[in-house]
């Protein structure tokens, strides 16, 4: 009597795991060869596994519902008159890295039950080290070390893949991807002659380096050093250290552009009524000592629209895997200052009246231009307007202020021919562009929101006042 283990096979060419759907046998059952033992489900199909042994079921090593790796022993069968597996004692221990048990001598002496087509997936632990491994080739000893010392990965099912150490991007050898064009034979020739193809300037129009050029380069006297042709002295490049606002802006833009999938939508509309409203407000005594601009109405329109679509005033919290719906509207205004771009925000902007909002805007921009914006005003923004119209451009595709779900670009307001009440008339027209984080804002929400802002600017009296 000997105990045989049946290991989960790869039933579908390259699968690594399967879920146990249900056992057809129980401990103590007598089974024949090819009798169905268990049903499993892989990424490809649900299949039944027949028994490779005849005998008595000794133990079921995995339960229904469990997902196990290929190569994991799933059942033990007591087989009469056969030699035991190599490691009979190590019973239900989920022998993750255990050496593969030897096969019964009767069947095939010394055959390891390594499944066809791949080695049993025992990950790196059982892989033998190469003796003559060139030292230089070992890719990242530091990464391995840091992985080893790193705290255990929170996800249980991550046996072999070490939590990827942060890629030392800064230290990575900068292999500039020089895209030289040359046929394989020419590349071979260049390699043989020791010619660096990237040093050759191809004469051909399509940029392909020819055999003759390689041969010429090889024949050329050892690359005439510092023989830069003295063309009329050009003005020298100026190098400015990256620091301060520029550095912060760059980091924020990179972080935003490459984490939040941006979508930008445009809306061109007639804002003549907004222009008229601005004129009317300016004439009112109440607004005499404060700046009133179309930006003010746009800000109000945006705030009003967030009330209708509060989901736009939100934030993606990757770490917590949550979407944060912001309680208040902290309206950021992108401001160009002598020190660079800053985006101070007006906290609780949804509570402000139009007049209060006008004050807040004026103060915010003034403080920013003086470079005195307190840190508190620079953090905690929830949604932003960038007023590119002041520079005379029509619109742009703004990049989100990191952590926010939407940003509105407000373009220049120009008089343009526009169909108004069935006739082409000169009207005040502008283009709004809304970028939003597509992880949490769908096209429908973004579109409806932008439309709502536009509606307010088309008819501000009806919507805002």
């Amino acid at each position, binding site marked *: 009597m000997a105990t045989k283990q049946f290991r989960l096979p*790869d039933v579908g*060419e390259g699968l690594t795991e399967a879920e146990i759907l249900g056992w057809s046998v129980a401990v103590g059952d007598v089974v024949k060869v090819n009798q169905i033992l268990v049903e499993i489900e892989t990424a490809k199909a649900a299949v039944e*596994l027949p*028994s490779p042994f005849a005998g008595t079921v000794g133990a079921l090593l995995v339960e229904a519902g469990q997902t196990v790796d290929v190569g994991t022993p799933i059942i033990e069968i007591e087989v009469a008159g056969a030699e035991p597996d190599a490691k009979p004692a190590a019973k239900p221990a989920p022998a993750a890295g255990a050496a593969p048990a030897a096969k019964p001598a009767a069947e095939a002496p010394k055959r390891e039950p390594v*499944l066809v087509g791949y080695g049993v997936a025992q990950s790196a632990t059982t892989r*033998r080290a190469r*003796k003559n491994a060139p030292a230089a080739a070992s890719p990242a000893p530091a990464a391995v070390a840091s992985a080893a010392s790193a705290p255990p990965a929170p996800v249980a099912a991550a046996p072999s893949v070490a939590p990827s150490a942060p890629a030392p991007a800064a230290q990575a050898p900068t292999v500039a991807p020089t895209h030289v064009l040359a046929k394989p034979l020419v590349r071979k020739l260049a390699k043989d002659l020791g010619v660096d193809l990237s040093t050759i300037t191809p004469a051909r129009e399509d940029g392909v380096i020819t055999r003759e050029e390689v041969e010429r380069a090889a024949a050329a006297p050892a690359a005439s050093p510092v023989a830069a042709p003295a063309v009329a002295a050009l003005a020298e490049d100026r190098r400015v250290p990256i620091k301060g606002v520029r550095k912060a802006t760059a980091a924020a833009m990179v972080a935003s552009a490459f984490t939040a999938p941006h979508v930008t939508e445009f809306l061109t509309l007639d804002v003549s009524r907004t222009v008229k409203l601005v004129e009317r407000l300016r004439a009112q005594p109440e607004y005499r000592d404060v700046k009133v601009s179309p930006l003010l109405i746009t800000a109000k329109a945006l705030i009003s629209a967030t009330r209708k679509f509060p989901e736009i005033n939100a934030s993606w919290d990757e770490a917590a895997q949550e979407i944060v719906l912001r309680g208040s509207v902290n309206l950021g205004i992108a401001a160009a200052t002598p020190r660079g771009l800053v985006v101070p925000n007006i906290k609780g902007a949804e509570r402000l009246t139009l007049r209060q909002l006008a004050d807040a805007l004026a103060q915010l921009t003034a403080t920013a231009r003086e470079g005195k914006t307190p840190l508190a005003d620079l953090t905690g923004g929830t949604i932003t307007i960038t007023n590119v119209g002041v520079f005379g451009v029509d619109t742009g595709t703004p990049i989100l202020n990191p952590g926010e779900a939407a940003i509105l670009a407000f373009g220049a307001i120009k008089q343009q021919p526009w169909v108004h009440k069935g006739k082409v008339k000169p009207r005040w027209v502008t283009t709004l562009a809304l970028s939003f984080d597509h992880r949490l804002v769908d096209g429908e929400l973004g579109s409806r929101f932008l439309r709502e802002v536009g509606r307010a600017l088309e008819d501000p009296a009806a919507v805002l006042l």
Partner: protein
Amino acid sequence: MTPVVLANDEGDRMTGRRAVEKSTTPNPASGSTKRAPQGRGTRRTTGLKDEPEFIQLLTPTGERIDHPDYPLELSPEEARSLYRDMVLVRRVDAEGTALQRQGELGLWASLLGQEAAQIGSGRAMRPDDFAFPTYREHGVAWCKGVPPVNLLGMFRGVNNGGWDPNENNFNLYTIVIGSQALHAVGYAMGVQRDGGDSAVIAYFGDGASSQGDVLESFVFGASYNAPVVFFCQNNQWAISEPTSRQFRVPLYQRAAGFGFPGVRVDGNDVLACLAVTRAALEHARSGQGPMLIEAFTYRMGAHTTSDDPTRYRSSDEVESWRAKDPIVRLKAYLDREALADETFYKTVDDEADELAAQIRSGCLALPDPDPLSMFEHSYAAPHAQVAEERAFLADYLAGFAEEEH
């Protein structure tokens, strides 16, 4: 009308072949291009809506019927041997599937349901006829005398074939879909130039019929009047793609466009497959050129062990074909005609069990190849780059050997 005589040995088979007269040979579609030759008196329907008739000599209930173009005389012994072949091959196939499920094979392509098409056509061949299989022709391999365990090597990943194609006139399994049809035509053209009277069969499936290689082989076979039979096992599914998507006209009717006859035969009727293939081989070897046989059958199992057919076809469809099972059908005939008794069936079943056990132990005993052997047959002659790569791998492997001390 001279019947085709199913012979017991090769000599008789030769005689039987000589006895075939024009009347038993299907007429090329030259005169009436509308239709390939078909049964006149005994047209049977395939049971499927809008499908044309096919040639049938044995109904699903085991009733023997005649066909004017494809007569068949069958001795009781021959009928029993066809039954035996189908049962044994089905068991070989089941063992292959089980071995895959136990991790002993990387893959297995099941022939379940196609036994009649394979045994019928395989038994129609003479030993000197050459077969070019796909990767599912375990039944044809059996007829050509390839030991079943030899079929397993490639599926176990320990060799690239497992038999000498010239020993049994059975080419190696071809994984590339349809390319063997070109090989077959090329071989047939060789036979033609050698002046032999052997014939060649190219096996392929309905899926391969959409492959350029197969259609090119039709063109070449027809152009050179090569002694080749195109034997398509239309098992209704090209993995998950139904034939309805591949065929605007029934497959066998395509032959007319290439200029040779095409017939549809009940692929679950071993007698019809035998008679029709035999006639087609005669057609080929008598210098009349190619012929296309569409064996209308069904793949009862998955495309391969990596496939899950329940995802794309209904169980109703499978059940309707189960009622046409080729083995059940022949057994019904044997019972009806009292050609076999329980002792016979028991003997065959025991033989199948024994064969399965042999295959199992033979599979487990297949030697793992020396890693360096992979270079041996890359080129017929020594090749500098292969030698270099071989040396590299040898050095690499030696690195482990030293480590273990």
